[in-house]
């Protein structure tokens, strides 16, 4: 196994995982909601991009832009109508509700698109690569990594340097007191859901280009996103980004050893972090 090549591929795969994870991190960070349908939204986005590109004769890039906006709106609406009602009580409600959503999305997709696999075609760009010495690095994976980095930076800025981000952090700390400040928490949650789904749509695009996707791929993406967040440590997007990269490297090394062991290696690294350092590798220190 060419170690350098494997690790580089792993890091770039981590970029895609980071995009999976960012949306989940936003929603969990603000509302403490684990959206079990998160991975299914990634898949849903890709199917929507496919359909829009085909029916409106647009390039997948244009379709992606449309779906990002569409998803942001969908996120807001979903939050205000269904998810808000599930919050605030015990843990079971959000789990069952988002699980129900997951079932609906998966089966709806199967109904609409059958179980055949599809992919987003972007032509030559998909396989174009660039050479750094002896290593060939795909343009798309580099692009994904770059976008993921930009998203991480963007989210950190949003949360730490804007009033909206400050409101997010305050409400996530203490919802009742935030209300006393005049923060309209339900509206705020809507914005968080909109951001979460918008970012997730970006993940949809790159996933759709990289993989052939089927309606049932969602849950595995959720797991990767979740593992990235836990490995990296809760509370910071940089932590999530790093966790995703670690997961990507772990999986890629596992695959190189034996294809059946790729995903399992990632799970094992996750469990190891859980046992040894449950707060994650880079948790944000909150007193």
């Amino acid at each position, binding site marked *: 196994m060419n170690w350098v090549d494997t690790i580089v591929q792993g890091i770039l795969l981590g970029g895609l995982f980071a995009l999976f994870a960012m949306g989940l991190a936003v929603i969990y960070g603000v509302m403490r909601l*684990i959206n079990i349908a998160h991975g299914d939204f990634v898949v849903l986005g890709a199917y929507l991009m496919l359909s829009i590109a085909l029916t409106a004769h647009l390039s997948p890039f244009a379709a992606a832009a449309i779906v990002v906006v569409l998803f942001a709106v969908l996120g807001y609406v979903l939050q205000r109508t269904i998810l808000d009602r599930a919050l605030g009580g015990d843990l*079971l409600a959000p789990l069952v509700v988002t*699980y*129900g959503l997951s079932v*609906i999305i998966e089966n709806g997709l199967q109904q609409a698109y059958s179980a055949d696999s599809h992919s987003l075609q972007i032509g030559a760009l998909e396989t174009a690569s660039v050479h750094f010495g002896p290593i060939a690095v795909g343009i798309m994976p580099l692009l994904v990594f770059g976008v993921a980095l930009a998203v991480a930076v963007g989210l950190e800025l949003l949360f730490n340097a804007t009033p909206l981000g400050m409101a997010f952090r305050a409400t996530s700390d203490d919802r009742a007191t935030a209300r006393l400040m005049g923060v309209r928490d339900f509206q705020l949650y809507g914005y968080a859901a909109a951001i979460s789904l918008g970012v997730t749509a970006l993940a949809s695009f790159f996933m759709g280009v990289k993989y052939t996707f089927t309606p049932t791929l969602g849950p595995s993406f959720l797991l990767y996103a979740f593992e990235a967040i836990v490995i990296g440590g809760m509370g910071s997007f940089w932590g999530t980004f790093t966790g995703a990269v670690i997961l990507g490297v772990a999986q890629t090394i596992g695959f190189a050893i034996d294809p059946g062991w790729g995903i*399992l290696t990632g799970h094992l690294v996750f469990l190891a972090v859980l046992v040894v350092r449950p707060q994650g590798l880079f948790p944000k220190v909150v007193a």
Partner: protein
Amino acid sequence: MTYTVRRATQASKLAAAAGALLLVAFATLPWWSSSRDFMQLVVEFVCILTIAQMWNLLAGYGGLISIGQQAFIGIGGYTLVVLVNNLGVEPFLAVLLGGAFTAVLALPTALVVFRLRGAYFAIGTWVVAEVYRLFVANLAFLGGGSGQSLIGLAAIPVDLRQIATYETAIALAVVAIFGVFLLLRSPLGFALTAIRDSEVAAESQGIDVWRTRLAIYVIASGVTGLAGSLYFLSALRISPDAAFGMNWIPLLFFTVVIGGIGTVEGPILGTLLYFVLRQTFSGFGTWYLIALGALSIAIMLFAPTGLWGLVQRTTKLRLFPIQSIVNLNSVNPSGEL
């Protein structure tokens, strides 16, 4: 002041009588009915009901919401297969051993997942289930990704095997329903309910929350493994996806949550409903599943105590009374006690 404490209600006495009758009827079924398909259905029903009751014990009483119990269904199933196929163990002993081995594995599993709380615990259990699935799928001697059949049973006459499987299921049903009921009325059960109501208060009463939760996790997972063993004994074939697959989760959500979480009656109602709906609507494929998903959401948002909860609220019915009812017998004429 004198008082009496009673634990049964009118309804529960009736239910107990009806239950005894039902039990006799079902236990003797192979001799008065020739429908082997129905027997198979009953076995499946019992397995699912048991798994549902165990999940209810964990989530509804223990406050441990796990979406990874399929790990133990799978461990139970594969243990059975290995014992029967590779080690030639007598099948019904193998079922019991399947449960026991699952309980053994549940202990280290708990030590890992108990480091997480809440939603993180839930997904952590799921990851663990995935790990088991992938592990098993990678091991050739277990049949790999496509699984294997229970060839070790080929020597047993079909009719005998089917009846024996069925009666084992009836026995399991009694354990699942009655056993849970007794557990909840035991000190462990009360500790659980106390923890569910208020962890802090329970601890101040000397209840070791961690130990209690561990005990319940191991017990529930072990019995889940037992049900898994029986399930695959009846199915005659196992594969990693069937054993450890995610399909078990919506099943549990549906039977327990829609039936009524946190009650003994709820999962029974939920499992019944699930089977009725499945037999009636399964021809509709994905639309049926979409409807189930939507129904789960609706119940969770608008009737979180489930169908049995609705029944309880309107009729105050308790078929499995867990609480004690205190009747005050007399008060002095002057109003003193």
